């Protein structure tokens, strides 16, 4: 091993974390864009009720409110939320994998989702905490507040004069995950059993929204965070070769790490507050996309956003189709993302291994 050493011995060095570019960046971006457009175009047709989408859309624009239009009016914000949520989680996952130098990092590794879930559980379990501020319900508000507290605690612990101690950040994040996990269990233990069903449903993750109003805060928080992350793409490329070399090449290491931490967490919290914790997308979408874009964050981040969003939109469309017989309920999309995504990704790994 030379001066150029691999950081072996860490979970960061899985095969998935070391994927090689197979497509050019622009081609991968065009492919992901096409995938996203196809997913967005196909999704309105899917659901337990069959509707004529163009006719319903035209009627909706005329202000008519028959059954088809009402169904479409519910599906459209849900599809947009799926695109934003899947995209945001994939973007945050890709960022955290580089920030924490760990291929197993997800948007949830640093405790943002469990902290948010605890906040949501408080709002769901205490009747006095059930209120709305404009379109934003107290569940989302409490989730965001606790996510922000989690990130503030992490920053205070990992902050150093010229960088963030990413090892400490990871340890503290995992510890806070356990802490908030215990808080969630305690809340469940103390809560009126009749309220547990709503809490469990929230925890499974889902894209059910009652209309556009409920959706508004998500892009308001997510899009600025995503833009900040995209602007750090070149600096993140340098961070992948270690803080010291990055600093020697003129990267403001501490600033880049801070933006990655805060913007990545803001994107994650924006999603989790409204959808609950939808797993898998934030872990696997960046790895799958990296196989086509290579490790250049200028292509990886936008492609991960588009592919993650398309994946979640499609999974939600399938979930709408799969109404569970006898219960009249849709399959929670969080279950579906892992059940479909895991074999898909394992297939990708297998194909890469067989490739010459």
């Amino acid at each position: 091993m030379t001066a150029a050493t691999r950081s072996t011995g860490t979970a960061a060095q899985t095969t998935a974390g070391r994927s090689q570019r197979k497509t050019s960046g622009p081609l991968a971006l065009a492919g992901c864009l096409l995938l996203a457009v196809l997913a967005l175009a196909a999704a309105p047709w899917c659901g337990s009720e069959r509707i004529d989408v163009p006719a319903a859309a035209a009627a909706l624009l005329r202000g008519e409110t028959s059954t088809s239009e009402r169904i479409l009016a519910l599906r459209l914000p849900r599809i947009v939320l799926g695109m934003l949520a899947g995209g945001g989680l994939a973007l945050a996952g890709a960022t955290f994998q580089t920030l924490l130098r760990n291929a197993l990092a997800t948007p949830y590794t640093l405790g943002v989702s469990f902290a948010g879930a605890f906040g949501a559980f408080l709002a769901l379990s205490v009747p006095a905490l059930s209120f709305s501020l404009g379109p934003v319900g107290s569940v989302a508000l409490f989730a965001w507040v606790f996510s922000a507290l989690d990130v503030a605690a992490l920053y205070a612990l990992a902050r150093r004069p010229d960088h963030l101690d990413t090892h400490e950040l990871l340890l503290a994040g995992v510890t806070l995950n356990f802490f908030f996990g215990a808080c969630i269990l305690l809340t469940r233990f103390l809560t009126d059993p009749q309220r547990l069903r709503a809490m469990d449903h929230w925890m499974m993750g889902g894209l059910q929204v009652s209309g556009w109003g409920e959706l508004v805060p998500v892009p308001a928080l997510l899009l600025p965070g995503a833009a900040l992350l995209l602007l750090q793409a070149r600096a993140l490329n340098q961070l992948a070769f270690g803080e010291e070399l990055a600093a020697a090449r003129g990267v403001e290491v501490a600033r880049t790490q801070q933006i990655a931490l805060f913007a990545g967490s803001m994107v994650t919290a924006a999603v989790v507050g409204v959808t609950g914790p939808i797993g898998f997308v934030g872990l696997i979408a960046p790895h799958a996309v990296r196989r086509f874009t290579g490790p250049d964050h200028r292509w990886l981040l936008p492609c991960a956003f588009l592919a993650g969003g398309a994946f979640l939109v499609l999974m939600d469309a399938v979930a709408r189709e799969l109404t569970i017989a006898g219960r009249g309920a849709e399959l929670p999309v969080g279950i579906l993302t892992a059940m479909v995504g895991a074999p898909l990704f394992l297939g990708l790994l297998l194909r890469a291994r067989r490739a010459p």
Partner: protein
Amino acid sequence: MSGLALSAVSFAYRAGDPVLDQVELRVEQGELVAVLGPNGSGKSTLLRIAAGLLDPTAGQATWDGRSLQALPRLQRARAVAFLPQSVPVLYRHSVRDVIALGRHPHLRGPFSPFSAADRAAIALAMERTEVDALATRSFDELSGGERQRVLIAAALAQGGRLFLLDEPTISLDLHHQVAVMRLLRELALAGRAVLCATHDLNLAAAYAQRLVMLDRGRVECTGSAAEVLSAARVARVYGAGIWVGEHPQGGGMAVLPSPAAAARSAHP
């Protein structure tokens, strides 16, 4: 004052525990200077200060008369290339991409494409280090010697006149050690100022124009190999059990471990 100059530089990570103490050092353009010293003597810290990554607690480090710590970040990166002892690799990059990343301080925006000057600098760095044939290979599949050449190419692409390398030959076989040191000497002869920290006294003696011996943060001696590598000094700094003499092929110094000398020292 041209070149790199460290004037009365001191540094301590903790108050009262100096890592460097009143260090004086000059490296002119066209010179390859090797910093020697046992583990913990302050070699890596000295390089970090010379790279502007650490602020000395006392004294000043300058490049062409300008304080390295006061130089704007990107301007400093365009003047000084630093290759740390360890470069952890997270993802699988092609050799060309690794070298192109060296152009970072020259790129204007987060998405701006490479200019003609960037492409020319990358091509020249690859040609100079003879890594053209590796361009499409994956960096993490290269041998240790090839990797080191690629990282030096990335430092060349960065475009600076001052090269700082921390243990550039560590863990390389003899062939690649010689190849790397020869490359560094060629870069120096082409007009760059090259400062490398190394544990290998023989390589330093064979390729560097000047040696700087550090001992517990102080400059023990500066000069040619013959001046710095005296048997008494090497024994004082590194301890007993080392033979120092003239290179059998002449024209330099050679340093070898000497079990006999170690035994004599243990049982006088």
